[in-house]
């Protein structure tokens, strides 16, 4: 033995193995441990799924009550046939995990404020925000409520067991790719995680408020200016429930507190002074037409929820068939049931209600200990929720949040959320904190046969409130603007409210029989596109910020066309007509002073003038319009906003257009920094000249074609560009029915014709597999980008020999 060389060589070997087992930080990013990552039997190569991979298997689980057969078609859509209903949910959990585990867990980590455990300190701000908002608190309350219902508890338990059956089968080599890249392992699933996922949807859909921004706008502007900038009425509105529809008699009469004008409306307390928050744009379309308006004579239902577009997708397509029900559609990896889809008798879909169901109250604490707060003339004790936020590579962060009668005191001296000055205490009152059993809606909708079943199902929906559309083979169509909507006095909760007495609290919810709905209306269709649900005759105050234009276009098309077919519905769903541009274009063209234009300006003006108002591929005019309007808004408002606090509300998109259509001498057109009085023509022309400079740069970058400027892309949930599909060649815009914009758009397009044998079509921008190494990872993206659909196959047991069936997994006990 040669001792010295032996020791040296041994040392090198060990160091090498050690170095390859460690996660180095390279260029600011944490790299995977290269040894196991590159090992063809352990690492990423194991996730490179063979293009002819065989998904078939025979599996045994003692938890099952009977046999379950799952047939996968050529798009990898599983058709689950279970002898026992709860077995279907077990298998749904197993299959969701098999194809989407990493995403499922990540979403619940995001919801529960646990991102720092995975990505380290840079997740801490997010985690604190979510914990302080009371997301875990809300999920725990919802879980308790769900588990009180024996049917839903059994369903959740089966789903959780199915997810865990898959997690327990994992080995180092079969772990999803992202776990290998980032270097962590999945933990077991639980009903709480399902509840957290659902709360994540509430966060996404029921946090439509700008109370802090509005408070500053109210404080900064005079009451008269404020009313002009933030009008409560939209002239162009075509509400979900048509104008003139009579409403139920008002039963709850919310009363504004005494002294509300001086204490609340006219208070000039600027509370906040930091960076601005992002404005999410979650909109959607849904509609149903009755048989009188279709070629076949059967109702057609359509839905396209607009959400953040990610890979893996939020949606997973599947069919669940049990002796109780047979449903097909888009499911949420993370929750049981079909969410948007159809069964043998009916179809159902949703758009977001978008009302303000989250308000803030300023709390007066006795001292910094936050143990007591002033409420209704006495000091009241708070309770504390202490959160331990785990952080990868660091000791955990301990956060303590005081809870009041309103809810958690989200903003305090220790947490500004980049929105407050740290010297104020704001408690948040949010409907998502109230007990609710949202899964029940889907469980019941999956088996709904008729209008009565639908009504019984959707009334379980509290938060996030949705416009629930329905059609069934009986010929009925319906829409219900369902949710827990606080009955507010006019202006309540538009701004931060005093939290020192009960008079500013919500005085009740709008009674369920006063929730606006439509059932077989005479016009033969129902529709919603996030517009204001009702006109001014509705007795309750429901806020002021709703996008009107998609709704106007949809209602016009649905009204004008006499006979629809599934094909014409697909065309309508992917229609690129820009309702906003159509509204304001005459005004722009009429007021443009083209006399002083240089060659570039003339060229861009010609593009604008000759644009057909459609956000199509190659439409240069659409880009010109977008840039011009942006500059126009800036030209009109920037002078007034120049000295405003940074966190402040800008006027809603429709405000300027509506104001000018009513009054071309709108007060804000005048530049307050000049002595002369600027006119509409001055503003438009000046904005256009500035826009032309931008457009020149955009054109030099080769981005003048609309789809390049709009830049629609599907981002990987972990922001890994190689696993994303960016800069797709696809049309649409935020004011078109086809509401594509950046990483936001129709996340699932569905058209269901309820003929004797249901005819359905659908597509989502993703693929069934969450594995970036699978050919099924993003194989729907191009079809989606082109505005094409797949036929949705409601398979029957008699069709098992059909050539579309490619693989089969059998589950037995």
């Amino acid at each position: 033995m040669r001792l010295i060389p032996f020791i040296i060589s041994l040392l090198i070997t060990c160091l090498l193995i050690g170095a390859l087992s460690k996660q180095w930080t390279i260029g600011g990013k944490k790299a995977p441990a290269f040894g196991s990552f590159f090992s063809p039997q352990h690492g990423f190569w194991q996730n490179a799924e063979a293009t002819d991979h065989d998904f078939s298997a025979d599996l045994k689980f003692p938890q099952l009550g009977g046999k379950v057969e799952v047939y996968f078609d050529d798009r990898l859509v599983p058709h689950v046939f279970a002898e026992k209903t709860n077995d279907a949910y077990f298998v749904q959990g197993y299959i969701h995990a098999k194809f989407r585990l990493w995403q499922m867990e990540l979403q619940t980590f995001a919801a529960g404020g646990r991102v720092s455990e995975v990505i380290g300190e840079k997740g801490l701000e997010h985690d604190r925000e979510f914990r302080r908002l009371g997301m875990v608190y809300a999920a725990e309350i919802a879980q308790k409520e769900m588990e009180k219902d024996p049917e839903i508890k059994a369903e959740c338990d089966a789903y959780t067991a199915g997810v865990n059956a898959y997690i327990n089968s994992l080995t180092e080599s079969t772990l999803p790719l992202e776990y290998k890249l980032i270097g962590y392992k999945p933990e077991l699933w639980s009903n709480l995680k399902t509840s957290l996922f659902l709360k994540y949807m509430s966060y996404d859909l029921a946090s439509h408020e700008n109370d802090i921004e509005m408070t500053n706008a109210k404080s900064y502007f005079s009451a008269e200016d404020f009313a002009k900038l933030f009008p409560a009425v939209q002239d162009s509105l075509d509400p979900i429930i048509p104008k003139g529809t009579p409403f139920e008699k008002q039963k709850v009469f919310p009363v504004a507190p005494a002294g509300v004008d001086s204490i609340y409306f006219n208070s000039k307390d600027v509370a906040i002074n930091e960076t601005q928050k992002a404005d999410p744009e979650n909109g959607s379309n849904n509609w149903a037409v009755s048989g009188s308006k279709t070629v076949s004579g059967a109702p057609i239902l359509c839905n396209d929820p607009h959400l953040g577009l990610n890979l893996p997708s939020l949606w997973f397509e599947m069919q669940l068939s049990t002796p109780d029900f047979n449903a097909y559609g888009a499911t949420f990896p993370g929750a049981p049931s079909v969410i948007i889809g159809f069964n043998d008798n009916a179809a159902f879909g949703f758009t977001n209600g978008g009302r303000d169901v989250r308000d803030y109250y300023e709390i007066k604490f006795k001292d910094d200990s936050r143990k007591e707060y002033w409420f209704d003339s006495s000091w009241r004790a708070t309770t504390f929720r202490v959160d331990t936020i785990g952080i990868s590579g660091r000791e955990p962060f301990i956060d303590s949040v005081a809870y009041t009668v309103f809810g958690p005191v989200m903003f305090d001296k220790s947490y500004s959320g980049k929105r407050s000055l740290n010297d104020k205490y704001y408690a948040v009152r949010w409907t998502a904190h109230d007990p609710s059993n949202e899964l029940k809606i889907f469980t019941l909708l999956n088996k709904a046969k008729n209008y009565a079943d639908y009504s019984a199902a959707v009334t379980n929906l509290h938060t996030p409130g949705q416009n629930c559309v329905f059609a069934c083979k009986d010929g009925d169509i319906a829409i219900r603007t369902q949710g827990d909507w606080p009955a507010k006095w006019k202006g309540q909760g538009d701004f931060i409210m005093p939290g020192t007495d009960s008079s500013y609290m919500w005085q009740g919810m709008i009674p369920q029989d006063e929730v606006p709905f439509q059932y077989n209306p005479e016009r033969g269709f129902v529709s919603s596109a996030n517009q204001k649900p009702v006109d001014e005759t509705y007795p309750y105050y429901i806020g002021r910020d709703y996008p009107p234009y998609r709704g106007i276009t949809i209602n016009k098309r649905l009204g004008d066309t006499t006979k629809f077919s599934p094909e014409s519905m697909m065309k309508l769903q992917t229609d690129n007509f820009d309702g906003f541009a159509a509204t304001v274009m005459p005004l722009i063209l009429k007021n443009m002073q083209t006399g002083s234009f240089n060659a570039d300006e003339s060229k861009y003006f010609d593009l604008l003038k000759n644009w057909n108002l459609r956000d199509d591929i190659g439409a240069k005019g659409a880009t010109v319009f977008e840039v011009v309007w942006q500059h126009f808004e800036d030209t009109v408002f920037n002078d007034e906003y120049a000295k405003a606090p940074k966190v402040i509300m800008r006027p809603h998109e429709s405000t300027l257009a509506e104001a000018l259509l009513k009054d071309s001498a709108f007060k804000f057109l005048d530049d307050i920094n000049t002595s002369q009085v600027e006119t509409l023509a001055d503003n438009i022309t000046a904005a256009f000249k500035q826009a032309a400079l931008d457009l020149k740069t955009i054109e030099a970058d080769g981005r003048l074609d609309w789809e390049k400027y709009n830049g629609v892309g599907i981002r990987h949930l972990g922001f890994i560009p190689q696993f994303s599909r960016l800069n797709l060649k696809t049309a649409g815009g935020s004011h078109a029915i086809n509401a594509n914009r950046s990483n936001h758009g129709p996340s699932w397009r569905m058209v269901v014709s309820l003929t004797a044998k249901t005819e359905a079509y659908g597509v989502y921008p993703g693929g069934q597999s969450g594995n970036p190494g699978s050919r099924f990872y993003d194989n729907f993206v191009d079809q989606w980008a082109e505005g094409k659909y797949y036929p949705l196959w409601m398979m029957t047991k008699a069709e098992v020999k059909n050539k579309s069936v490619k693989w089969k997994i059998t589950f037995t006990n």
Partner: protein
Amino acid sequence: MKFLLSILLIALLSFAAALYMPWWTIAVAAFIVALVFNMSGGKSFLAGFLAIFLLWSVMSFLISSNNGHLLAHKVSLLILSVDNPYYLILATGLIGGLVAGFAALTGSFLRTKQS
């Protein structure tokens, strides 16, 4: 002959062990085979290196071909910042080869006498 046989044995042992054990068992396999076969240091290193270089690159090549190199394109861009599946396969072979090479060298030094 002894050289070729040791390559074959290291590859086989490594493959079998990795079915159940962590990736670094390739080092144990190379070490044991080198100890038993008692070749010179250079030859042992080469045997270990070649065994795993070949095993890992051939395996990854086969997996990647069956995958239409779909994932290799993405991962090579992500890890190596170039879109080239073959570089990724080469990197795979080199990482495994180096570890096995040094492990085999260590094994050979443990023998008192060399044939």
